[in-house]
């Protein structure tokens, strides 16, 4: 790479000058990067929020307001509107303020790579009512039918996800069956030619539902009772600390895990 400098070396600059040059360039570069980062930060966060909002409203037909929650063994915690990254449960409410359902994320390995999906669960119907693929790199023309095939998508308009009597797991495990052999409400009619991808969707739903729905059932009252926040909540100076305490108390939500 550096043939010239080894043969022709007219005046070798001091190492001080070399380091100084690099330092100045690095500092300038850092300055510009920070500038651009600050300028685009808000817009990027907004893009992510809008993208997620669209997806949530797709899987929860009729919902117009979204509220983020974080649900784990430790409890259900309401999160500020912009804390999309930490949330794993997105509750959707309609204009009257009643709960339409919750959107949950799930993932499983498909044919080429991990398939990440978002599905809508309606607690009152105990069923999955909507489905969309967030990320997949399945083979175009074959595996990607899980995103486009209308017959396959019809599976998720009303897919039974009822809990057993103890409320610990699904009564009937969601499972993908061969195309046009669906007989039960909890079965997903597969796609010929996209078997692996369709089975992966079934597996993702089954695993996620078995893990999340029992937890959700335990906290269902705290999801339905709080009045949904307005679409643009008042801006808080320090959202990470402030919102968690105030809002969880007023909402009467069990706050087992307060640590961010």
């Amino acid at each position, binding site marked *: 790479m550096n043939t010239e400098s080894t043969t022709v070396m007219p005046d070798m600059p001091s190492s001080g000058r070399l380091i100084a040059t690099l330092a100045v360039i690095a500092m300038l570069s*850092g300055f510009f990067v920070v500038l651009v980062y600050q300028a685009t930060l808000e817009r990027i966060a907004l893009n992510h929020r809008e993208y997620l909002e669209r997806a949530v409203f797709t899987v929860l037909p009729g919902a117009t307001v979204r509220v983020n929650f974080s649900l784990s063994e430790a409890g259900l915690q309401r999160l500020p509107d912009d804390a999309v990254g930490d949330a794993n449960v997105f509750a959707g409410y309609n204009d009257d303020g009643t709960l339409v359902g919750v959107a949950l994320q799930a993932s499983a*390995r498909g044919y*080429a*790579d991990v398939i990440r999906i978002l599905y809508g669960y309606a607690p009152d119907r105990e069923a999955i009512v909507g489905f969309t693929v967030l990320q997949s790199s399945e083979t175009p023309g074959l595996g990607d039918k899980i995103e486009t095939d209308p017959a396959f998508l019809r599976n998720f308009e009303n897919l039974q996800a009822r809990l057993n009597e103890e409320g610990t797991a699904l009564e009937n495990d969601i499972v993908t069956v061969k195309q046009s052999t669906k007989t039960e409400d909890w079965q997903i009619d597969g796609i010929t030619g996209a078997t*692996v991808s369709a089975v992966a969707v079934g597996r993702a739903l089954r695993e996620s539902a078995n893990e999340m729905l029992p937890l959700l059932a335990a906290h269902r009252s705290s999801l339905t009772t709080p009045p949904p926040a307005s679409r643009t909540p008042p801006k808080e100076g320090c959202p990470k600390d402030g919102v968690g305490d105030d809002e969880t108390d007023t909402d009467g939500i069990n706050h087992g895990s307060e640590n961010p």
Partner: protein
Amino acid sequence: MHPDSAAFLFLHAFLINNFVLALFLGLCPFLGVSAKLKTAWPMGLAVIFVMLVASLCAYGINILLVRFEIEYLRLICYIAVIASAVQLVEMTIKKLSPTLFRMLGIFLPLITTNCAILGMALFQTFNEYNFVQSLAYSLGAGAGFMLALVLMAGLREKLELADVPDPCTSAAISLMLAGLLSLAFMGFAGLGG
């Protein structure tokens, strides 16, 4: 195989999503050094080695970047540190083992600006692999690069005896071969499930 297991990540980078043939990373050295099997082997070894070094560096730096919340400097730090690490390695090898240096030495500077290295470091960060996963992934990526390179070199050596139509010589026919290899590698999709 569990999708998060180190063994699967190795397989994932090695065959299923081969860096050269499925992700198009590192094409310049792939086309440049694949003319002879004799050079393809040491180049492949050098890439595996640099991959491991880069993976370790990227893993360490990322911890620092996250700690100080300056992730936006990630790209600049990665490229600077990987380039200097490779240079350090080059000097060390030169000092310690001249034989090894004669074998790998000329390829090391070539690899520094190889997008496969930076690509591996970035993917490893995006997917939030832990230490063992990162090592397995980088090893798989390097081995996958070597496999593609050696396969290609073998094919191109045979090609020298073939009667290729005039406008298709060199780059065009090599790319055509790479396309066929890539087609064959698509068969690995779904492996290890």
